[in-house]
């Protein structure tokens, strides 16, 4: 009730901005741009956003500010971005959650496709399949039969519903055709703590969170989940190399509210491509265990296609895993 009035008024403002949009598009941007990150400050997505925003500021000649609107698996921030004025001054940077939210949450206040204009893909963070240091299987080839044999005796941690680590775990179980015992945590940090302490057996998580532990020999890594090996972990094979059909990465995209002027979208997409070509961005991304999306992916068309296909993919995965929308 309280939020209805503002939303109606915001809608009216948005509509008037739409009419005025074309006139201002060529001067864009004339004021600072706010990028909503639907997660709290300091997390992996926030880090990606801040690195890109810094580089984009340099090109656009206006500050690109990050606004963290956390909560409800990223749907609060995305909802706020969907309702924002489509004048190009409020954008959304979201990850794979954009495609899983429609299957995980009932009555979403936004539609991932209809309420946004895609600008471009930013990066796809690879995942790693890891286990406690003294876990029996040594390689992925040994791990596959081990899980198929022991099933629910294998305890695998994740960071809760919709988290990257849960998504990867779901796909892994689907690929193996076996079920493990899932233990959710409040975030990856505590899950990693229990993995290091040997309380749980396995995890599948973003390189951002695992690279350092792997390199230090604190945990065992079996495979990375992207088609290519990861630069910072050259010795870890890909899942596909080891004969497991698993391709999952945490892709990040930049969006504007629906109805944003096409000229503005093009300008932003071009700026995003420049930012991703920036050396500092590339080297920081490498330290995170990932790489900037190539220029041809940092485009509205590529992001639109990824989003649409991922929504379909996850709908199927959740359905067969029996995860219902809340």
């Amino acid at each position, binding site marked *: 009730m*309280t939020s209805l*009035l*503002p939303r109606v*008024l*915001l809608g009216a*403002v948005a509509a008037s901005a739409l009419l005025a949009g074309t006139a201002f598009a060529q001067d864009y941007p004339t004021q600072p741009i*706010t990028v909503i990150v639907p997660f709290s400050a300091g997390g992996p997505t926030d880090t990606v956003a801040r690195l890109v925003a810094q580089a984009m500021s340099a090109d656009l000649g206006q500050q690109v*500010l990050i*606004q963290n609107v956390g909560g409800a698996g990223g749907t609060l921030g995305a909802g706020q971005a969907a309702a924002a*004025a489509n004048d190009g001054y409020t954008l959304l940077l979201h990850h794979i959650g954009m495609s899983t939210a429609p299957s995980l949450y009932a009555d979403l206040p936004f539609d991932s496709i209809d309420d946004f204009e895609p600008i471009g893909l930013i990066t796809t963070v690879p995942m790693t399949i890891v286990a406690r240091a003294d876990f029996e299987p040594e390689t992925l080839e040994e791990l596959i039969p081990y899980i198929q044999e022991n099933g629910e005796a294998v305890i695998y941690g994740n960071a809760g519903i919709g988290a990257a680590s849960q998504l990867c775990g779901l796909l892994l179980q689907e690929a193996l055709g076996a079920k493990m015992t899932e233990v959710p945590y409040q975030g990856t940090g505590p899950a990693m703590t229990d993995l290091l302490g040997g309380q749980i057996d396995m995890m599948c998580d973003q390189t951002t969170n695992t690279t350092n532990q792997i390199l230090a020999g604190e945990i065992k890594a079996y495979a990375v989940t992207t088609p290519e090996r990861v630069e910072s972990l050259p010795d870890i094979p890909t899942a596909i190399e080891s004969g497991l059909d698993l391709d999952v990465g945490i892709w990040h995209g930049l969006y504007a509210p629906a109805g944003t002027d096409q000229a503005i979208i093009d300008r932003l997409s071009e700026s995003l491509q420049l930012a991703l070509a920036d050396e500092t961005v590339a080297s920081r991304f490498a330290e995170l265990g990932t790489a900037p999306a190539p220029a041809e992916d940092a485009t509205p068309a590529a992001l639109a296609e990824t989003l649409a296909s991922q929504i379909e993919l996850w709908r199927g995965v959740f359905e067969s895993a029996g995860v219902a929308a809340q």
Partner: protein
Amino acid sequence: MAVQASRNDLATAAIFVAIGGYFVLESLNYTLGTPLRMGPGFMPIALGSILILLGLVVAVGAFTHADPEEDRPFPWRGIALVLGTIIFFGATIRGLGFIPVVFLSALGTALASRENNPVSAVIIAVALTILCFVIFVLALGLQVRWFGPWLPF
């Protein structure tokens, strides 16, 4: 010995039972689960029941003693204005923007005290608006609109 009951304790008991009752009733909608895999309803039902029990113990204890005599009027004006202002702040911060909302909220809260008259309340409100603006918007870089979309300019 004491015939009178402690009203404070009875009120506490009522709050305990009410809160416990709400959580138990609402939790009945959630799965209880098994010991291996406890459902979302398990802990709230257990804790809600404990709270109801504690409420009943407090209620029984209330009949053993009376409240000490004291004159404590209920601060209706304060409750209405302070809490009202907080809700007003939440309801309008996005629509009206930082400056008008902070000014009106400061005015509203200042008037909660009978020690303030309209003139002193306005002075406090102006001063606080400036102070908050400097601290939060200028110094800390809080991202809010100074004047919100509900206003014509």
